[in-house]
Structure formats: C-alpha cells, structure tokens
C-alpha cells in the first residue's frame, strides 16, 4: 500500500467534472498537473491579504509579501536538499531555467573546441537552447544514444565526455518514463572535469530529490508539473557556480547600482531575477511542496510504481500485440509516463485519433511528439499516445482507459 489516501481526488476541484457526459479521467500529468485546493487557496489568500511588490517596500504587506517569496524559496531549497537557499532561482518555467543556464553559464564558458553532451531522450527545452548557443559560439553538441528498450546507451560515455565541459541530461524521460542513473552520470562527468546539469522537470514531482546525493551541479524543474501553478520554474546550482555566472536578463531587482555608464549586479539569487517576480506563483509552489511533503515523497513514488505496474499489466494482458508500451518494462526503473502505440500491428491507429477517441470517453491523454522530436526519430515513430500518471490517479482510471481504447477498434476496424 502506497500511503496515498484513497479519497485524494477530493482535493482536486478540476477532477470533479464530467466531459461528454462521462467523469473526466485526467491522464496527462506529464504535460501539466492539476492543483489541490490548498494550492489554489494559498494564491487566493496571497492576493486577498498581502499582495505587494517585494524587496522594495517597508510597509506591512510589502514585508509580508517579501517573506512569502523568500519563504517559498526556502521550501524549494529544502525539498531538493539544496545546501543553501540562495542557490534557488525562480524562473517562469523549466524552459527559461535551461535558457538561463545556456545563456549565462554557457555563453561564458563555451567556445570552439568545447563540447556539451546531451542525450537523444531530451525534451526540446534541453536541446534547442544548445542549438541556438552552439550556432553562435561554435562548440560541439554530442548525443548519448538511446537503446531500443528505452535506456541511455552508455557504452561510449567516456569518449563522448572527452573534452566536454557539460553533460546535460534528463533525470526522467517525459516520453519513455526512463529514470536515468544521475549519480553514475555525475561521477562520469566529474571524472572528465565536466559539470552536470539535470533536467528534473519530470523527476522532481515524482521522486524524492536530493541534489547533493545526485551529485548535480545544476537542476532545472517546473512548478506546474508538481501541483504548483503555471508561470514558475526553478534553476538550482551551487552558489560557487552561480556567483561567477554573468547576469541573464537585465532590469530592476538584479542590480546593485546603475549609472549612465554601466551597472553592477547584486547578490545571488536576485542577480538572476530581473523585474517583478511571480510572488503569487512562488506562494503556490510553496503550498504544492507542503502538500507533497505531507503525503511524503516516498509514498508518492511508491504509488507511482504500483500504479505503473498495474497499468502495464492491465493493458498488455488485455490487448496483447495490439499495444506496444515504450520504455522500460520494470516499474521500479521508470516513472508513470506510458507512451504507447495501439491498433492492428500492421497499421497502428494514429496517436491523434486515439486521443480523440479517448476524449470522447472523458479520458485525457496527450498525442504527439511530446517536445522530443529527436527521440521520435530514434524510436522511428512520428508521434505517440501518452498516458501519464500522478498521485490522484488510481486503478479505476486505468480500467477506464483500457475500456475506452476499445472504441477505436470499432472505428478503425481491427
């Protein structure tokens, strides 16, 4: 038993609805998660009682708003076991956090002859910024291949890391669910004198996270996938690294002094937070962390392993060779992100059609390339259907998904 309360759905107002006359079954949390009432209430309460701009005012609610922002930062730091609170930088999403990393650290450290190593299972957020910077700075982008069973192929890792300054990889694939062995990758990178950046967008919401145990130098993640609001993401890095990184965006909050001739930057983390920050969103993220911590991240992970096992078993037992579920087959080696193809083994139903058919049954899944086009190429599929699980899903959701798939056999006749 996973320790997740069986009535947990009651905490999520959005799940209390019907679509097309059927109860809505939300299986797209890898895309964005739903919010518990406590997160919504925390943001309301912020706007209804202490909304003010931060770090600037000496009046009562301005002080409280500043405390709320910095208190949320401290919660984030504790949640990922960061050595210090001022190592947590708020961005608008994981994508901005990756761009901060590339634009600031990357632009200052990478040039011709250098290399950055990423993997074929990265999200576009960990690809496109490198393409953009490489075009400008002339360093090399190297790719760790992905095996046919959905793991990183580490055979040539040491060769790939030769002369590399950074290894930037996802801790959990948003398509395959694969959990990568970050401590091992960190060790390999550090042995070659490279730093390691971890895309934790799919990992931090689902698995107990400890940046120190990971051996990470940078960690990127996003609030909206972990019960928090949209509009907030996080970059964490060791203070020594952040201290010497040049600023990213320029403007208010990040300066020490500005004259007509130039400017100087203030201390971390504010140096990287130009302009009015998203205080309400930070408060919401803090409330999400409280909610997850209350459940216990070990329970969250345990629930996901159990439900993933149930889903893998249910779907393969029922549909045999009509369904192929990508990624590792062992639930303990993966997250609850289930990309699949379905239909006649000769002519699969297109993922977009599957999503449409499922929608009619109230089941929300995503179809597409999941912002991982290079991986789609490696897997040799144009797109997949993806059901992704979170704490509010249970076995009955899986049963409804399994039933709903049936309808596409009628339409597409197989």
């Amino acid at each position, binding site marked *: 038993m996973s320790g997740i309360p069986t009535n947990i759905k009651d905490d999520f107002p959005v799940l209390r609805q019907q679509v*097309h*006359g059927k109860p809505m079954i939300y299986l797209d949390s890898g895309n964005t998660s739903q919010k518990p009432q406590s997160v919504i209430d925390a943001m309301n309460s912020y706007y209804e009682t202490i909304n003010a701009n931060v770090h600037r005012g000496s009046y009562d609610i301005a002080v409280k708003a500043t405390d709320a922002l910095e208190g949320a930062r401290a919660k984030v730091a504790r949640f990922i076991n960061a050595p210090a609170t001022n190592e947590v930088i708020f961005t608008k999403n994981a994508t901005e956090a990756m761009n901060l990393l590339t634009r600031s650290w990357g632009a200052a450290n990478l040039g011709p002859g250098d290399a950055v190593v990423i993997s074929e299972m990265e999200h576009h957020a960990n690809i496109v910024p490198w393409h953009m910077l490489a075009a400008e700075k002339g360093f090399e982008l190297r790719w760790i291949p992905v095996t046919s069973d959905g793991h990183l192929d580490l055979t040539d890792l040491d060769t790939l890391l030769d002369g590399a300054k950074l290894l930037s990889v996802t801790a959990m694939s948003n398509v395959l669910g694969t959990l990568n062995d970050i401590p091992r990758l960190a060790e390999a990178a550090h042995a070659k004198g490279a730093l390691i950046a971890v895309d934790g967008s799919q990992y931090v919401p689902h698995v107990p996270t400890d940046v120190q145990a990971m051996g990470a130098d940078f960690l990127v993640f996003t609030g909206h996938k972990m019960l928090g609001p949209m509009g907030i993401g996080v970059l964490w890095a060791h203070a020594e690294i952040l201290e010497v990184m040049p600023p990213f965006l320029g403007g208010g909050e990040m300066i020490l002094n500005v004259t007509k001739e130039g400017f100087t930057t203030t201390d971390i983390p504010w140096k990287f937070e130009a302009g009015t920050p998203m205080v309400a969103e930070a408060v919401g993220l803090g409330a999400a962390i409280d909610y997850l911590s209350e459940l216990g991240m070990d329970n969250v992970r345990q629930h996901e392993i159990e439900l993933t096992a149930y889903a893998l078993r249910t779907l393969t037992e029922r549909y045999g060779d009509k369904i192929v579920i990508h990624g590792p087959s062992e639930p303990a080696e993966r997250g609850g992100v289930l990309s699949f193809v379905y239909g006649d083994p000769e*002519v699969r*139903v*297109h*993922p*977009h*059609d599957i999503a*449409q*058919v499922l929608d*009619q049954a109230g089941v929300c899944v995503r*179809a*597409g*390339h999941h912002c991982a*086009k290079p991986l*789609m190429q490696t897997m040799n599929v*144009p*797109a997949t259907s993806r059901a992704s699980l979170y704490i509010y899903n249970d076995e009955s959701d899986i049963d409804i998904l399994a039933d709903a798939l049936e*309808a596409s056999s009628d*339409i*597409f*006749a197989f």
Partner: protein
Amino acid sequence: MPGLDDLYREVILDHYRSPRNRGELETPPAVRAEGFNPLCGDEIIVFIDVDDAGTITDIAIGGQGCSISQAAASMMSAAVKGKTIAEARRYIGAFKGLMSIHEGEIGGDGSEAETGISTGASESGDVKLGDLEALKGVVKFPVRIKCATLSWNTLAEALAEAEAS
C-alpha cells in the same frame, strides 16, 4: 454534443485506408512542397506536375499523420488532379469556407493563424466539393481543423512555387 460519427465518416476512413495518389513525382519537372504541423507531428508532402497551360497534370502525396490529415490529403489530391491552378485555388477557397476559416484571423486555439490558407482566392465560386463535404464534421472538433487543412496549405505553397518557376 458532437459524436465521433461526425468526425470519422465512412468516406474519410476509406480515403485513410486507401489513400489516392500516394507516392512521389520526380523533381523537376514536379515541384515539391512540405507542410508540418509542429503540434501533432503531422507531415504532408505535395508533388505537382503543372503543364504550360497551368493544368495540374499529376499530383502525388507523401508524409504521415492522423486519419483526418491523411484522408484530407487524399481527397484533396483527387479533387485538384487535372484542374488548372486557378481552379485549384478556388477549391482552396471553398475548402477554407467549409472549415469556417477567415483569413488573417487568429483563432481561439491559434489553429486558424497557423493553418489560415494563404491564397488569393477568397471567393469559392461554384466549386463542388463532393466527397470533401464529409470533412465538414471536423469543424465541430476545432483542434482537428489544422489536420484537415494541412494538405491544402501545402498545396497552396506548391501552386505558388509552380507559378514562380
């Protein structure tokens, strides 16, 4: 409430299962245009041979995607094969009308701006859409409109290129 029957009409599924004019044409003489839907990954490649009189003497369709995009491409190819560029443009206009797309407008989900078929022909005249009418149900599923229009956008590009060369 629209049902799946509105979307997956039999004639659509028939075009999906047995696509017409599937393949490639040699370029040159053919012109080739490629259309991408970045959101769902659908891809359509249109090859057309146009003779000196401006008639589309041959057409071939490549790419892959969902039933709607593939069926629409197949139906499109059947409709414009043997027609002149001007007639093909009228088809584009008529199909756009069928999809309720108004040029230059950005739709609720951005689909129209992305798919807004760019052609001079805003008048559809007396074009008979025939089989294509089956796609009318797509309008009730706004996210699928871009699936249905992808091949038509790509055709418009191919026509422009054929005229330019």
